[in-house]
């Protein structure tokens, strides 16, 4: 992710960037029109090139109106993607999934490495209250909204109240999931320091664990409501317990290994991170370990049990400067615009209510925890974003409840699309307004090649 600071850009530079962006899209669009056989398959390599270049340029241009870089990457993906210019097709988007795997592992590793025990201790009270109130209040109120809107949802037509209640609870639990990637993306760009940044990072990283537990609980409760003859089974918890403990154990081991490597060798971190991201993610999936949690634990161990945290974060930042652009641009290309167009009224209502309840819950928890005024005002701002985690959970729900799952997932995709676009803008706005964004130009920073050394 591009850093925030650096030399201020003149209007001429912005004009060059805009012209280059238009030229890139225009020429490729022209080529696909002139040679229609190329239209649907410009290829993975070209796709990465387009997303990387257009994402970087778009983020630079949107920066002028105060929007986060992440929005630029998403917008570049949307424009270049299958629903607008069709320079990157569905098949190519799917082929880019290894980049997503790598990006998510880097995000989790960085997230863990950003969490220091002393920081956590300083916001422990706020975290505890926020977790409790955000989980209970948002889940309950969003479920209630879903119940009220159920008559407009085709996939629950003909369901009994009990069944709709079960589906509403599942929607509610989806609403409490957040986006670690968006949070880290914005923090990386703004280099924000302060109570809002610290709280947001800690809350979102910990909420990953909370959401996994909540989903298992709600699915266990919803099953007898939705499925006739279904019973509450504690087997899910058994599996979940093994997965969580296993993930933490594996993550701690990985973290110790990484800390040792950083201390004894400390070179070629780019390649080490690539090997970890590509190789270990697949291995973790194979042994049923939650990779996000494992990488989170690994990063946490490196930061808190060694003094190698800054080195790891620096290497991730350098590697991520390219990977995250492609990751978010691919996410943009993946957004189902026609579906969003179809479901937007209901999706906007659900997203709006979720945002309002999140703000209310944030204010209440801040008041109870006696947070600083800045946190009371802006503490909720990072909690609106949703992305891959919510989509992943919706897939789990589709598999568990195939009778209504596809319609549920379509609505989830539409809602996540809205939150994915709006959330980062809100968070950056809050960081700018709270004065936590680093407005100083950073010292000349080394490049990606340093991470390779």
């Amino acid at each position, binding site marked *: 992710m*591009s*850093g925030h600071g*650096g*030399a*201020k*850009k*003149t209007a*001429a*530079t912005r004009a*060059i*960037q805009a012209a*280059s962006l238009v*030229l*890139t899209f225009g020429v*490729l669009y022209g*080529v696909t029109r002139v*040679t229609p056989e*190329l239209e649907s*398959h*410009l*290829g*993975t*390599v*070209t*796709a*990465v*090139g*387009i*997303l*990387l*270049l*257009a*994402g*970087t*340029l778009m983020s*630079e241009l949107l920066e002028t109106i105060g929007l986060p870089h992440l929005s630029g990457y998403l917008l570049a993906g949307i424009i270049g993607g299958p629903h607008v210019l069709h320079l990157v097709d569905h098949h190519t988007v799917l082929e880019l999934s290894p980049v997503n795997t790598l990006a998510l592992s880097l995000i989790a590793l960085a997230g863990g490495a950003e969490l220091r025990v002393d920081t956590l201790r300083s916001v422990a009270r706020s975290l505890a209250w926020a977790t409790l109130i955000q989980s209970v209040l948002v889940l309950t109120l969003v479920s209630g909204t879903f119940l009220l809107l159920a008559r407009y949802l085709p996939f629950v037509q003909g369901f009994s109240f009990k069944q709709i209640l079960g589906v509403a609870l599942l929607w509610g639990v989806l609403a409490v999931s957040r986006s670690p990637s968006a949070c880290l993306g914005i923090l990386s760009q703004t280099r924000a320091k302060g109570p809002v940044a610290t709280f947001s990072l800690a809350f979102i990283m910990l909420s990953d664990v909370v959401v996994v537990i909540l989903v298992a609980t709600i699915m266990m409760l919803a099953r007898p409501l939705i499925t006739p003859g279904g019973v509450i089974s504690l087997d899910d918890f058994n599996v979940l317990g093994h997965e969580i403990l296993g993930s933490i154990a594996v993550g701690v081991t990985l973290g110790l290994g990484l800390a040792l490597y950083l201390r004894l060798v400390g*070179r*070629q971190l780019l*390649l*080490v991170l*690539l*090997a970890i991201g*590509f*190789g270990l993610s*697949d291995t973790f999936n194979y042994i049923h370990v939650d990779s996000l949690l494992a990488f989170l634990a690994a990063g946490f161990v490196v930061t808190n049990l060694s003094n190698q945290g800054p080195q790891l974060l620096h290497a991730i930042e350098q590697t991520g*400067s*390219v990977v995250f*652009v492609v990751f978010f641009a691919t996410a943009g290309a993946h957004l189902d615009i026609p579906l969003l167009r179809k479901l937007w009224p209901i999706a906007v209502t659900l997203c709006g209510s979720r945002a309002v309840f999140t703000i209310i819950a944030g204010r209440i928890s801040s008041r109870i925890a006696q947070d600083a005024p800045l946190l009371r005002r802006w503490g909720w701002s990072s909690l609106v974003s949703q992305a891959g985690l919510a989509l992943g959970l919706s897939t789990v729900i589709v598999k568990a409840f195939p009778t209504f799952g596809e319609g549920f997932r379509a609505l989830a995709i539409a809602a996540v699309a809205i939150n994915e676009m709006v959330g980062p803008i809100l968070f950056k706005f809050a960081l700018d307004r709270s004065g936590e964004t680093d407005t100083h130009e950073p010292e*000349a*920073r*080394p*490049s*990606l*090649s340093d991470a*390779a*050394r």
Partner: protein
Amino acid sequence: MNPVAFLLGLLVLAYLGSILVGGRAIRGFGLPSGAEYLVLGFVLGPQVLSVVSRSLVDSFQPVVLVGVSWLGLVLGVSYLRVGTRRVPVPHLLGGIALSALVSAAVSTAVYFGAQHFSKLSRLETIAFAAVAGLICSETTRHSVRWVVERHGAKGPLADIAADTARASALFSSLALSVVNAWLPGAALPTFTLVERALVAIVLGIVLGFTAALLLGREFRRDESWGILLGTSLLGTGAAARLNLSPLSTTFAMGLTLVLVSRHRAYFKAMATPTEKPVLLPVVLLAGAMVNVRLPLVLLALVGAALVAKLMARLFCGALLSLSVPSVQNARLEFGVGMLSSGALGLAVALAFGVRHPGAVSDAVLLLAAVGVLVGEWLGPAALRRALTIAGEIGPEVPPPASEPGSLERPT
């Protein structure tokens, strides 16, 4: 083998490659052309142990394409300078002329050999001859650097060797665009051959200008990778999709970038440390792709090409000795010393294989691989001898290079 395990293996190789970037390592560890990784790939590949299957290797074709193109970019970015010294224009022109001469000699030998002794079609004959010539026209600069650094050589002959090796990259990198444009299946059928070939190069020039323009004003280091990688991948993908030469595109892009950008030193420092980490996995994949079970006539043509290359290099040594006094007493050794080939030859062969798969591309890859091994066997020793005769090898090895990322000898 599982693709993920194979990918991890390639990353480990890249890791080793990045260690070898250091000046200290290059003098004491590994062969200059990376021939050992070529042999390793061959042994692991379908011809010997079959640990890596052909289908697995084929599934990594996009990686090969990107790797080859990135090497093209690195060659372009580092083309005009040896260390901090700018390559003199006469040396550049001389190096290009010599590589064209070697290329012509090898192409002629292969063309007449194929025409008289094989049943290859006219198209296959011309393609084989042309690409064989391009592969043999390269002298790897790593080999020259290896000898120069290992033995602490300093003087006009060492400079000529380094400059000639550096200059040789341009001919094969750009001429490949003509071959690719000529082969059937190239897009833009209404264009002439020259126009199609120029599209690949002009695309690189335009992208190089764009990258220079985007990064050239208020320069931000942290966005430079996005721009550089984005433009090079865009060029690679577009050229590949048009069935043109991605290697030519990225070479032209790299060269344009350093010609027009005021941040050329930064781009070079950025790109060169990535060369070995990219090169070694590509060399391993090339080794795994080598097919020795070819018709006898193709094997004979490979042999003929190598002999023609040796003769042409000896002729070049003699030719140089007429104008360069330091070569006069070591023309034979100098000629053989410039036999070493490496990354570029393999890249050209791989790029051709992606563009025009079949028995001829297998023969071409075999030629590149054997060329690397023969060059490794004869080249460095002969060059060392030439430098000794010229009195440019000192009695003591100097201290290691101070700049860890530098691929050049200290000046």
